[in-house]
């Protein structure tokens, strides 16, 4: 039974609205992050112990000098939030890009060549899935000493599994289509087929996974920082801000609600974008 007019319209708008909302929020955050030096009212690292734990402006004791209040070292929360956006976006995009390269390579190779190559790829994927990611990331960070680059590297090297799984099955589907056989018949080299025929056709799936993995990376960095083995202080990583504020959360809950809400908002926007993209490009795969 074909969908009624109402349902068709709703599906299209819904798909587009979520993309619009997601994209707008992400672009806004990006703009804020880039304009940080001009937007931030204070220096995010400047401590002022006489101004500790001032509530945000909507509380009776708050003021407009510190719109989101200050943390336990007197640092302006809004400024830290704005600079923290840089960290989240940077980690998210770089780690996602890195894992995209690793995962897609594995997935496409396994999906295209099949046979023993595919067995190897599946084995590698299963091994990665069996690894307790957070534990391993923490252990490595503890030993090497953590920093922004280490966090990005660790995340990039660990988060490629969904890329691999999805591109592998997408490649297997595309591989059996006629135009691949045609390309082979005219003597195209394997590399050429992979780059020019296969990759563009799995691009939409890849894009959806990329947005979702970016969200994952941001959450994971926040978690690592929260546990103390992510970006080291005094960096304004949102996860770190929650960790540092934990002690004071009972009397000054904004110290954790504000950075947490920022994380939640950004990740939500990215997920909405990814979901919306999936609805537009391949609504049947929604599950």
């Amino acid at each position, binding site marked *: *039974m074909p969908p*009624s007019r109402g349902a*068709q319209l709703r599906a299209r708008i819904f798909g587009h609205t979520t993309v619009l909302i997601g994209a707008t929020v992400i672009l806004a955050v990006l703009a804020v992050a880039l304009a940080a030096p001009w937007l931030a009212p204070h220096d995010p690292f400047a401590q002022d112990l006489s101004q500790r734990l001032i509530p945000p402006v909507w509380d009776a004791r708050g003021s407009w000098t510190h719109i989101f209040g200050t943390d336990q070292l007197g640092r302006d929360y809004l400024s830290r939030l704005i600079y923290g956006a840089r960290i989240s976006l940077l980690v998210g995009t770089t780690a996602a890009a890195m894992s995209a390269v690793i995962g897609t390579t594995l997935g496409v190779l396994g999906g295209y060549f099949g046979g023993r190559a595919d067995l190897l790829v599946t084995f590698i994927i299963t091994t990665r899935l069996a690894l307790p990611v957070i534990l391993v990331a923490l252990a490595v960070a503890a030993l090497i000493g953590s920093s922004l680059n280490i966090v990005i590297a660790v995340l990039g090297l660990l988060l490629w599994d969904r890329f691999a799984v999805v591109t592998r099955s997408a490649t297997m589907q595309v591989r059996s289509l006629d135009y691949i056989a045609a390309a082979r018949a005219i003597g195209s080299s394997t590399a050429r087929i992979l780059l020019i025929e296969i990759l563009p056709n799995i691009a939409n799936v890849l894009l959806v996974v990329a947005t979702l993995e970016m969200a994952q990376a941001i959450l994971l960095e926040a978690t690592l920082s929260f546990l103390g083995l992510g970006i080291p202080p005094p960096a304004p990583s949102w996860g770190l801000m929650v960790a540092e504020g934990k002690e004071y959360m009972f009397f000054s809950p904004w110290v954790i609600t504000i950075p947490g809400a920022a994380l939640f908002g950004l990740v939500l926007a990215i997920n909405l974008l990814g979901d919306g993209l999936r609805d537009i490009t391949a609504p049947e795969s929604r599950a």
Partner: protein
Amino acid sequence: MSALLEVKHLDVRIPLAAGMLHPVRDLSFSLGHGDVLCIVGESGCGKSLTSLALMNLLPARARRSAQTLALDGIDLLRLDERAMSDLRGNAMAMIFQEPMTSLNPCYTVGTQLTEALRRHRRVDARAARDRAVHLLEKVGITAAAERLGQYPHQLSGGLRQRVLIAMALMCGPKLLIADEPTTALDVTIQAQILHLLASLRHELDMAMILITHDLGIVARVATHAAVMYAGEIVETGSAREVFTQPTHPYTQGLLRCIPVPGKVKRRARLGSIPGLVPSLIGDSKGCAFRNRCRHAFEDCAGAHIALAELSPGRAYRCLLPPGQCAANAAAAAL
């Protein structure tokens, strides 16, 4: 004797993006106890939806309306879903076209059979099993007791259809609706299933509505026939009447399509009805068949043509007088 099933002015409408689909239009017929009514027509003429409308198993968006819809005196239009479910599988049962996918793959044949009975009767497990075995044997399945423990994927298509027939009979229904029960089966199995249905009807004094596009089936089992075209009934009557004296050009066309061994000359063209079935979206004027009818004339495109009754139970929907096309009738199937 009053009719078992009385249907008057049954309509089914389904709102679609492209417009209002009207696949069942102003259907009226009645079925006596023990009758076998065959509803004949080509694919897409609305016969399956008619049967679903009787059972109230239409898709969620479909809207059913009728002046009368009564089974053995019970007004089916008044019943809510609970009351209707009490009747389904009980007083009226239905079997469908695709035996391969109509059984739940996760439960044994026995479970699915006994639950049909225990839903409507207070019997214990043993009694239910005994009845299941009894019916499986009745539908011609050997080693019935072992079959109870088997899963559907272990049975062939023909066996599954027999199981489904047995399942429909578990509560001894007064009416069995069979929607193209043999279409998905091999020809040899078809014959067996038809024979089975015919004999069951006699034994159990059960009325049947058999939906089919195959006139051969009609010839073999029907006591009455109703020919459907584009959502409407265009001819009804006893099977013999419809076959020997078809009054509607469409029925005549259908009968002409059947080649009879011995009666058809070599190299003669096989009969066919030119043209396509009209769209069922929106309501059209005049006769729905006129674009394909060799006897069509001006008035056919005018007002909507009502069903004209020739005698009780015998009616047709055409402007031409009944005898006019009879000369061309092929009394082939009988």
